[in-house]
Every structure is written in C-alpha cells, then in structure tokens.
C-alpha cells in the first residue's frame, strides 16, 4: 500500500528562479502518489498567481487556493493543510528543493514502519547558484537536543490525523511555528523515525533563516517561547532563554527537589603533577567537590585500595570531615567491583561515579546533571571533561567508526557539528570518569560488569541502559578537569575488545546519536 503524500506549501513572493526550481523538484519525484497543496498568501508579485493557476491546470494533483488577504505563514500553512486529503503531510517551503528520491524514501519508510507518526531526514543548504553546502548529519530522535535546536526541521513529514489532533500551526510563533508544531507532535508520539539521507535542500537566499542564523532573531524568540510552553506542558520547571551567540535555546532546569547524591570515588592514593604541583589526586578531587559544589545534599564515598598510604586517608578526613565515608577494598584490582561496593555502601537515589584524577570547574555541576536525570527515562548523565590544558578530554562517547571519547583533544571553544558541543544531547554513553546514574536503573541493569575490570565498564553499562530503553545525556554545562594524560596510550587488551564485541558488537559503528566522526 502506497500512502498518499500531501505536500503543503504556503507561497508568498518567492524568488522566481527558486520557485521554478522548487516546482521542478516536485514534478521530478520518482514517487508519483502525491498531491501538492499550495496557498498563495496574497503575494504582491502578479506572476505568482498566474504561475499557480498554470500549475493547477497542468496537473490535477496540484491544488491551489488564493487567499484574499495576507494572513502570514501560519494562516497560509493551515489553509494549505485544509486542502489535503493524504494520510501524511510533507512540508515544503516555496523556495526550497526536494531531493529527487525524497518522497520515494518517505513512502518506503512509512511502509517499513506502518505506525510511524513523524518522519524527518537529513538536509543541506543550497546557494542561489545551486551549490550544496552545510550538510546536517542528524541524530536519530534526540528529545533533549530538540529542546536546544529545531534540528528536525527539513524534511518533516507527519501523520495528518495527528497534525489535526494537536491543532495544526499556532499563531504567536511566527518564524518558529514549525518548531512549536513539532514539539507538540513529539509530545504525543514516540513513533518518530529519522531517515539518515539528505532529502531536502534549504535555499540560502539573503535574509532567509538558512543563510544567516541571526537573520531572523524574532524566530529565536518564538523558538524559546515554544520550548518554554512545551516544558510547562510537561510540568518541567526551567528557565528558558535564547542564546544569540550560539543561536540555541538554553534550558536551565530548576530543581524542586534535591535528592541525595552519593559521590563514589575509587582510588589507590596516586600522586601526580597537576598544574606543576605534585598533588595527591583523590585529596584534590574531594577537596574541589567539597569546596566548589553548590549542591548541598551529597556524601562522598571513597573506595580505598589496600596499600593506600594512611596519610591519604587522614588528608581526606581533614578536607571533608562531615560527609566522607571510607570503604576499604582488599581484593585484586577491579574497577567495576570497587564501584559496585561503593554503591551498596550508599543509600542515595542518585550515584555519581567520579575518578580521583578530576577537579570541579562548574560549581553547579551536580545541579546541572541532576536536572537531567530526574526525567523518568534518563538513566545516566555525563559532563564535559577537559584535559589540564583546557582541551576536550570527553564530550560523551561516540561509537561511529570505533568506540571513542567524542572530540577528544579538540579545543573546548569549538562549536562542533551544528553546535553539538554547546548543547545538552542524547549520547550512546558517557565516560565513567564522571557519570551520574540513577540507583534504581543501576540495580536494574546489574551495575558495573565485573568482567571488565579496567576498560569498557562504562561503555558496557551505557549499552545496557540503551538496551532497556533509557536515555543517556551529555551536557556541556557541567565542566570538570580530568587529569588523564593526553598522550596516554590506549591500554586496552584485545581480550577486553573481544569481550565487549561479544555483547555489543552490533552497536559499534551504529551510533544513533552521533553519526559524525
């Protein structure tokens, strides 16, 4: 069964060459079972009406409605939706282009996922001269990222019945009316599919949102308003702002509760030169947590290896006299086991694993991470970790090509692919050097697997969470130093790789959230 696809296009004084290209790409579609609903929003250029009438006469699949007065993009889009008879609506702007296979790909996707409600694809931009640039390699459905940017944008296809159910486009969101619509649609369904192919070419004409991110500032104000209302509907208390420097919506969740956090630090009391000073790592880490954290409700559990100098324990007690618990560990080294022992010695609903070679930068690091983990389906949250010299040590895990810390070694000032280093987003894992985990979820997946005594225990637990349908969030708004040597050799044994592959081989090089290297 091929679905009827209704293309919806509000028209208002498009550049003529761009409109002709748009028409060309619709008529050149491989897939033929479509209808095109165009509504002219009282264009001032006389050729527009003539051309639309020509199109209607040319092909009976074209439906045209000419508005008698200019009502804006929302009114025109809603009028166009009223003309549709198809099961799915495809949004197309009057100066953009569809890839020739776009509708074919959408139809194939619908046939493969009959209950799908919302489909989006990758996209790129196109100059006036027809040159393609700025390909946006998007993640699979990533709701946290969607709060910061309308990354789904083009090409978007949605089930008509759901679109009508949520009330179509709304007034008051001009410039971000599609973002507002997508937010309301994605609140109602989990049947969202990403087609990882460029099916839409967004024309960068002067003054368009595609050509410059600051060309339509009013659009971003509307975007922040859309996100704010979305969060209110979800009963999430947050401060929502638009960051003009990043062209992103920033969501700062306000905690209504402050659940207890057990910070678990496994250590053997190693010393290292930090910023040129010989330092006991764990004492430095505990001191920075104690002194810099603004979150009040936490305890620190240090799991100490046998053989750790007694002076280290004494120093720990001195820097953190009130909320420190020391657990002795007298078994052969096993990082996972040490973590598990730390967990069973705590009673907090939230567990925060922290390496002893870390130091806090953001005072609100715990609040920021707790803000994400209180969402029901989030099991694990990780921060931005920086090397001593300020470069990125880990911006979450990526499984594209191989398992690695994303963007390791790059400057922490870079924005990343479509600003992905500046926004909180879903990831396939975060490094165990600093990871906040829900206690219940931790127990549900069996904690850290002791079959990985040294490497990959964090990857394994992340895969276990993903397998059970949990989300993992990485945030750049919590920042810590991780004094891992930037030139550390990959100390991974082939047996450990084999072990990981035996469990999760199919997930390697198939990262749903990070498809760029």
């Amino acid at each position, binding site marked *: 069964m091929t679905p009827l696809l209704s293309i919806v296009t509000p028209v208002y004084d498009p550049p003529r060459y761009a409109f002709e290209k748009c028409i060309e790409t619709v008529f050149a579609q491989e897939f033929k079972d479509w209808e095109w609903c165009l509504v002219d929003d009282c264009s001032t250029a006389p050729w527009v009406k003539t051309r639309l009438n020509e199109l209607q006469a040319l092909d009976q699949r074209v439906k045209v409605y000419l508005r008698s007065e200019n009502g804006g993009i929302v009114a025109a889009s809603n009028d166009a939706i009223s003309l549709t008879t198809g099961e799915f609506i495809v949004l197309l702007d009057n100066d953009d282009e569809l890839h020739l296979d776009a509708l074919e790909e959408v139809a194939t996707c619908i046939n493969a996922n009959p209950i799908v409600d919302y489909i989006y694809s990758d996209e790129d931009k196109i100059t006036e001269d027809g040159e393609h640039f700025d390909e946006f390699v998007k993640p699979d459905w990533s709701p946290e990222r969607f709060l910061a940017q309308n990354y789904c944008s083009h090409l978007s296809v949605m089930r008509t019945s759901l679109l009508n159910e949520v009330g179509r486009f709304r007034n008051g969101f001009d410039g971000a009316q599609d973002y507002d619509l997508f937010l309301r649609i994605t609140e109602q369904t989990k049947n969202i599919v990403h087609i990882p192919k460029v099916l839409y070419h967004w024309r960068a004409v002067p003054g368009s949102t595609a050509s410059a991110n600051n060309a339509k500032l009013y659009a971003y104000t509307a975007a922040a308003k859309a996100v704010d209302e979305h969060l209110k509907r979800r009963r999430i208390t947050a401060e929502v702002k638009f960051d003009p420097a990043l062209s992103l919506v920033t969501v700062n969740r306000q905690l209504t509760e402050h659940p207890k956090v057990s910070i678990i630090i496994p250590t053997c009391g190693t010393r290292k030169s930090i910023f040129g000073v010989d330092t006991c790592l764990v004492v430095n880490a505990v001191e920075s947590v104690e002194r810099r954290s603004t979150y009040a409700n936490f305890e620190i559990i240090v799991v100490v290896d046998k053989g750790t100098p007694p002076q280290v324990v004494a120093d720990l007690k001195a820097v953190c006299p009130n909320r420190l618990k020391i657990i002795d560990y007298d078994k052969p080294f096993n990082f996972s086991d040490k973590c*598990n*022992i730390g*967990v*069973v*010695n705590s009673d907090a609903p939230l567990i925060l694993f922290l390496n002893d070679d870390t130091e806090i930068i953001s005072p609100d690091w715990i609040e920021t991470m707790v803000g994400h983990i209180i969402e029901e389906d989030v099991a694990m949250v990780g921060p931005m970790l920086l090397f001593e010299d300020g470069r990125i040590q880990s911006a979450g895990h990526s499984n594209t090509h191989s398992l690695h810390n994303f963007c390791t070694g790059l400057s922490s000032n870079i924005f990343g692919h479509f600003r992905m280093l500046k926004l909180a987003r879903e990831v396939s894992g975060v490094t165990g050097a600093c990871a906040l985990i829900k206690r219940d979820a931790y*127990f*549900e*997946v*069996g*904690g*850290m*697997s*002791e*079959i990985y005594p040294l490497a990959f225990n964090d990857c*394994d637990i992340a*895969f*276990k969470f993903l*397998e*059970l349908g949990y989300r993992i969030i990485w945030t750049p708004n919590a920042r810590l130093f991780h004094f891992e040597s930037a030139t550390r050799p990959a100390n991974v044994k082939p047996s450990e790789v084999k072990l990981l*592959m*035996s*469990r*999760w*081989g*199919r997930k390697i090089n198939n990262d749903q959230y990070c498809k760029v290297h």
Partner: protein
Amino acid sequence: MDDNQAVAADLSKIELQAELLLSRNKLQVAEEKIMHLELALLQSRDFSIGTAAEMGEMRVEHNTIIEKLKDANTHIKNHLAHIKRLEEAMADLHRSNALQRGQAAELVRVYNSASWKIGRFVMIPVRILRKISS
C-alpha cells in the same frame, strides 16, 4: 534509693548496654549480608542482561552465517551446473573424436583399397600433364 536498688539499676543498665551492643553487632552483620546480597544481585542481573546481549549478537552472527550459507549454496549450485555443462561438452568432444577416428580409419581403408590404387595408376598421365601445363 538504698544500695541494693542502686546496684540493681547499674546491673540493668549494663545489661541494656550489652544488649544494645549485641543488637548493633547483629545489625552490622545483617547490613553486611544485605550488601553481599546486593552485590550478588548486581552480578546476577549483569550476567542475565549480558547473556541476553550475547545471544542477540549470536543471533545476528547466526543470521549472517545463514545468509553466507545461502550465498555459498547458490555458488555451489552454479558451480555444479557449470561442471555439468563441462561434462556435457566433454562427452560431445568424445563423441566427435570417436567419429573422427572412425572417419580416419575409413580413409586409411579407402587409400589401401585396390580400386583407389588402380584409380591413382590410371590417373598418372593426367597428373603429369597437369604438372607440365602448370
């Protein structure tokens, strides 16, 4: 309060303290047991999830092998058909060889026959004349 009463109160206090200590010890033992059980629970759950994941991997591998097997079977079938075609071609060759051998024997027999020899003898003047004229 007389002396006896004071001694009795002290004794009961000591007894209570001893009981408290005992309870605390029991509690500590119970807490340790709980911790061990929690660790065992973590291990069991990890094992079950890990095994399920390994099974998933094996299923993927199994499917890959089945696909490969299908390809191999197709390849073998094609190969067998090719062998059959070669065998048929060889049989044809053998048949035509046998035919050729029969024809060669027939030719030898013709050359050796008296009629062929008489014919050649009769034709000698004609052959000489042809050579001279050419």
